[in-house]
C-alpha cells in the first residue's frame, strides 16, 4: 500500500474539489498580495500596469513604526493575559465534577457562537462616558469624571481579551482534561508544595495545549481590525486598521497589499516558532514517558 506512488482515480476525484477550490481562492490570492505590492496604483482605486517599488517606499511612512510596534505589543500582552486566565480556568474545569464541567464548558462556548460585533458593541456602551462601568468607577472614586475609558489602547486590550479568551480556554482545557490529575497528588505525596507541583508537573503536562492556545489568540489578534476600529480610536490603531484605511479611504490597493504582505510575514514568525518548538523537543509531553 505504501509502495504505491501514483494516486488512484478515486483519490484524485475525492481530492480535486477542495484542492482546486483552495488553490484558486486561497493560494493564488495570497501570492497575488505579494505581487500587487509591486504594482502602481491607478487613480480609480484599481491596480495599474507595470512594476514599481512605490509601495515598498510607502512602508517608510513615519507613522508606521509606532503602529507596527503597538500591533506587536498589544497582541503579545493580550495573548499573555488570555493564557494566564485560561490556565487556572482549565485547571478548575478539569478538576470539577463532570456535571459542572459540562455546564462551564457550555458557558465558555456560548460567547463563541454569539455575534462578535454584538459583544464588541456591548463593551462600547459599557465604557461609554455615560456607560455603566464609567459611572461605577467614578462612584467608587477610582477614576476622575473626565477620564475617558473608550478610544485608547487599554480598551483595545480589555475587549480583545473578552473576545479571544474562549480560544485560549478551549485548547488548554482539552489538554488539561487529558492530564492525569493523580500525578499532582503523587507529586504532593513526594513532598512537593501545591504551587511547585502545579508549575513543574501540571504546566509541562499541558504544554501542547498552551502552545495551541497561544497560536489561537496571537495570530488573529495580530490581524485584528474590528476591535481597535470600534473601541481604539486613533491612539489604539493597529496594522489591520491601517490596511483597511488604505483600501477603503485612500483607495490605494498596492499600498494596502504592501502592508498586508508585512502582516503575513509577521504571522509566519509565531507559526515557525511553534513548529521549531515541536520538532526540537520531539515529544513535548514528557508526562507520556511516566507510567
Amino acid at each position, binding site marked *: 500500500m505504501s509502495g504505491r506512488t501514483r*494516486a488512484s482515480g478515486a483519490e484524485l476525484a475525492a481530492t480535486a474539489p477542495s484542492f482546486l477550490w483552495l488553490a484558486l481562492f486561497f493560494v493564488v*490570492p495570497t501570492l497575488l498580495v505579494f505581487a500587487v505590492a509591486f504594482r502602481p496604483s491607478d487613480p480609480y482605486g484599481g491596480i495599474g500596469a507595470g512594476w514599481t517599488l512605490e509601495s515598498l517606499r510607502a512602508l517608510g511612512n513615519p507613522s508606521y513604526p509606532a503602529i507596527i510596534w503597538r500591533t506587536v505589543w498589544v497582541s503579545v500582552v493580550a495573548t499573555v493575559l488570555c493564557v494566564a486566565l485560561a490556565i487556572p480556568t482549565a485547571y478548575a474545569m478539569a478538576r470539577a465534577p463532570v456535571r459542572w464541567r459540562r455546564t462551564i464548558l457550555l458557558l465558555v462556548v456560548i460567547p463563541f457562537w*454569539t*455575534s462578535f460585533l454584538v459583544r464588541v458593541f456591548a463593551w462600547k*456602551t459599557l465604557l461609554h462616558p455615560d456607560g455603566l462601568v464609567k459611572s461605577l468607577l467614578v462612584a467608587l472614586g477610582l477614576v476622575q469624571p473626565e477620564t475617558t475609558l473608550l478610544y485608547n489602547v487599554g480598551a483595545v486590550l480589555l475587549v480583545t481579551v473578552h473576545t479571544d479568551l474562549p480560544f485560549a480556554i478551549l485548547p488548554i482545557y482539552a489538554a488539561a482534561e487529558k492530564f492525569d490529575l493523580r500525578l499532582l497528588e503523587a507529586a504532593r505525596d513526594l513532598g512537593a508544595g501545591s504551587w511547585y507541583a502545579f508549575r513543574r508537573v501540571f504546566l509541562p503536562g499541558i504544554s501542547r495545549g498552551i502552545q495551541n492556545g497561544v497560536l489561537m489568540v496571537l495570530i488573529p489578534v495580530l490581524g485584528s481590525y474590528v476591535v481597535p476600529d470600534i473601541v481604539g480610536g486613533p491612539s489604539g490603531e493597529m496594522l*489591520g486598521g491601517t490596511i483597511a484605511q488604505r*483600501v477603503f479611504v485612500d483607495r490605494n490597493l498596492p499600498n494596502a497589499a504592501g502592508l498586508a504582505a508585512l502582516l503575513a510575514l509577521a*504571522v509566519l514568525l509565531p507559526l515557525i516558532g511553534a513548529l521549531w518548538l515541536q520538532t526540537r523537543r520531539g515529544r513535548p509531553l514528557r508526562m507520556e514517558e511516566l507510567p
Partner: protein
Amino acid sequence: MSRNRLPILVTLGVLVFFYLPIAVLVAQSFNASRYGGHWEGFTLAWYARLLREREIWRSLRNSLLIASTVTLASVVLGTTAAFALHRWKGRLQQAHYALVYSPLVVPDILMGMSLLMLFVSLGVRLGLGTIFVAQVTFCVSYVAMVVLARLQYFDYTVVEAAQDLGAGWWTVARRVLLPLLAPGIAAGGLLAFTLSIDDFVITFFVAGPGSTTLPLRIYSMIKFGSPPLINALSTIMLAVTFLAVVVSQRLAAGKEVPARASNHPG
C-alpha cells in the same frame, strides 16, 4: 487550602467577564433612556422601531441567502476533503492537508485583502457572488476539520463489508457512509452557518453595493446609528443563538443512542 480556591475564583471571574456586558446590553434594550445612562423605565419602543427598519430586514435576507448556500457548498467540499484526507495517506494528501489547514491560521483581514486582490485583478463585480466565494473558502476548512475529527472513530471495515455484500459505490455512500457521518456533517454545517452569518471582516472586503449582510449593517449602525436600536437587534440575535445552542445540545445528547443503534444492518 486558600490557594486551591484561586482557580475556581478565576473561573467565576471569567464567566462574569463573559456575561456581564451581554446582560447589561439586554437590559438596556428595554430602557426608555436613549443614551442608556440610567434607567428611565421599561419600554418595547426600540423593538417596535426595529420592525420598521427596512434596511435591516433586507440585510438579514442577504445574510440568510448567503449562509444557506455557503453551508451547502462548504459541507459538500469539506466532507469530500475530510474523506480523502482520512482514506489516503500519500504525498498528495500531505499537500492537501496543508492546503486545508492553512486558512485556519490566517488572520481574516489577510484573507479578505487577498480575495479582494483576486477579484479586482480579474475584474469581477463585487456583490453576493464574491461574498459566497470568499465565505466558502474559509468554511471548507472548518467543515473538513470537524468531519475529519469524527472520521477518526470511523471503522472502514464497515465499508468493505458492505462492498463484500455486493453494494456499489453509490449505495455504500448513501446507505453506509452518510448515516454514520451525519452527526459530524451536521456539526460542520452548523459551524459553517454560524461562521457565515457572523462574518464581518472578510465580507466587508469583498462586498459590493446592494450586497449588505447583517454584520455589515450592524457595523455601520455601530459607527453611525442609534445605540438602543442595536441593543434591541442584538438581544434578538442573542436569543436566537441561545435557543440554537440549547436545541443543538439536546439533539447531540439525543443522538448518542441512535448512533449506536445504526450499527445494525439497515
